[in-house]
């Protein structure tokens, strides 16, 4: 079981200075390489001695992977850009404020100073059975300890569970999906660009990974298209304590209204499944309808279709329904800010 120790197991450390060197290293070491961004998820794993990589490739010195640049009227954000830099960037705040809100909702100021956007979207599940080193499905075993009659599963999935019931804990991920962002992945074989919603994988597809990154891959940048710049955004995160906590459920939406009608909308939620979910069926149902309580009710009801709560997380069903309603209808009262 997990025992916090002061000293990590030995590994070979590489600190490449450019992307090509980093790609060469991850290609050379393959499965033996652990790619480290801000290190906030990494050090937990290593100090707990649950993960024991032979090689750590620290990307902190790859300056070209950090920074925010204009891109086709939108933005290209380097994967190693810190969450604080994302939150403070004037164009992000002006045109894509939902991302600033989502990034600012993550963890604490100290962690956001060190944590990166790429790391935030790529972080591993927080299920304590998994992180405790138990031989669960996600760790390669044949059991989900969180999905048993006596398990402590208050924070776990209510949707799309398939053997594993862990959830994705990222706050920036639903904002990126709502913005129709693209993830730029490079490997020694070349570059591929995926829609943000396709970057994440559920346990039905791959029970041991939360995203499409495989040995040899690097997430190098995240592109935010101009299509949703300056539209109407909504982000809300519900957590047990309002500082430094992972989401129980969060919701992000980007919408364009025409009068009182919803012209187009994208909604994504996280904390309810092993991957952030784009609620396409909700989007389709409410598009063209008036932005009112009835439409919000419809959207909220659709969002929870298929929900299968575990013993202790039934509260997530009404929570998800109400957050989706609020994302469609909006709220009058001020939202929490740090």
């Amino acid at each position, binding site marked *: *079981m997990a025992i916090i120790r002061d000293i990590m197991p030995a590994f070979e450390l590489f600190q490449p200075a450019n992307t090509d060197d980093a790609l060469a290293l991850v290609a050379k070491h393959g499965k033996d390489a652990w790619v480290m961004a801000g290190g906030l998820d990494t050090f937990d794993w290593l100090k707990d001695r649950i993960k024991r990589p032979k090689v750590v490739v620290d990307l902190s010195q790859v300056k070209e992977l950090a920074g925010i640049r204009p891109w086709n009227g939108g933005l290209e954000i380097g994967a190693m850009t810190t969450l604080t830099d994302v939150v403070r960037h004037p164009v992000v705040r002006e045109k894509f404020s939902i991302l600033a809100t989502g990034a600012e909702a993550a963890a604490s100021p100290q962690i956001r100073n060190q944590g990166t956007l790429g790391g935030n979207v790529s972080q591993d599940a927080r299920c304590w059975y998994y992180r405790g080193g*138990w*031989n669960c499905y996600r*760790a*390669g*075993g*044949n*059991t*989900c*300890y969180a*999905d*048993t*009659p006596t398990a402590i599963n208050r924070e776990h999935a209510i949707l799309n*569970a*398939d*053997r594993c019931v862990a959830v994705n804990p990222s706050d920036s991920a639903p904002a990126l999906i709502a913005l129709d962002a693209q993830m730029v992945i490079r490997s020694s074989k070349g570059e591929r660009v995926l829609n943000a919603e396709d970057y994440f*994988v*559920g346990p*039905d*597809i*791959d029970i041991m990974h939360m995203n499409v990154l495989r040995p040899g891959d690097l997430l190098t940048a995240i592109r935010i298209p101009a299509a949703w710049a300056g539209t109407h955004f909504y982000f809300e995160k519900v957590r047990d304590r309002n500082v430094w906590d992972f989401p129980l459920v969060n919701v992000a939406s980007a919408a364009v209204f025409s009068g009182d009608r919803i012209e187009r909308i994208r909604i994504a939620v996280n904390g309810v499944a092993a991957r952030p979910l784009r609620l396409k069926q909700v989007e389709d149902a409410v598009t063209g309808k008036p932005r009112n309580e009835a439409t919000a009710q419809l959207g909220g009801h659709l969002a929870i279709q298929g929900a*299968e709560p575990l013993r202790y997380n039934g509260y997530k069903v009404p929570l998800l329904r109400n957050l989706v309603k609020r994302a469609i209808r909006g709220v009058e009262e001020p939202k929490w800010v740090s």
Partner: protein
Amino acid sequence: MGIVEWATSPWGQSVPIHVSFYLLWVSAIAGLLFLIGHAIWLRFSGPEEYEESARANAAALVPDKVPRHSLAARLFHWIMAAAMLVLLFTAFLPKVGVEFPWVTYHWVAGLVLSASIVFHVVHASFWLDFWSIWPDRADSEDGLRRLRRSLGLSAPPPRRFAKYPLENKMYHGVIVLAGLSVMGTGLLMMFRVRTPFLTRNPYLFGDMTWGWMYFLHGLAGVGLIALIMVHIYFAIRPEKLVITKSMIFGTLDRDYYLSHHDPARWGPEETATEEAAAGD
């Protein structure tokens, strides 16, 4: 590099969790080597010779199309084959990097396979000649003769086959072993996933028992890769196509029947009846 993957349970106990999946490559390569070896052996071996049948006079009573597989038996075979292929692909494609939501397809195909196996056992026990697929004394003697002759040793020619050649019977025996293993363990593993049929209960067995069950399921599964490769190979070999066709249309050609099968050991029912009436 063992054949079992082990892990530590929450109670500190070392438990098996599943078969080592490199074995799927071992199985695939073994199957491939068998095919290559057999094809080479067949290329250089002479034609098979058989002992003259004591009932050669029965040839006149053999119809043009000799019934071999009933419609029910053929349906069972093809349903089982489809289920087996779905099971193999859904089990192992994700292991070689082809990712898709495989679990539901896998257990649905598993239920189809299980139902077809249960049907087959009942059908074969009460409506077919149950013992026709199991090796008998004559098969052992003839097998030994064929082995000695293939090694250049002296031995009389073997008799023609009964309904199934010895290889067929041995293959069936191995498939029964592997099939029942995956079926039995697979049905119990249904308690580990969410289905409309069972209440999920991972506590049905302890970690050790579950671990060995997963191991057996995986071991039989990887074994089936080679077995199915071999089966398909024989099904599409030119000289065996007549047998494959009999699994589609239900009958064997008369010429093939007379050249490979002994009417004294297996004949169409009417043939046997007429022979019996003639006091043979």
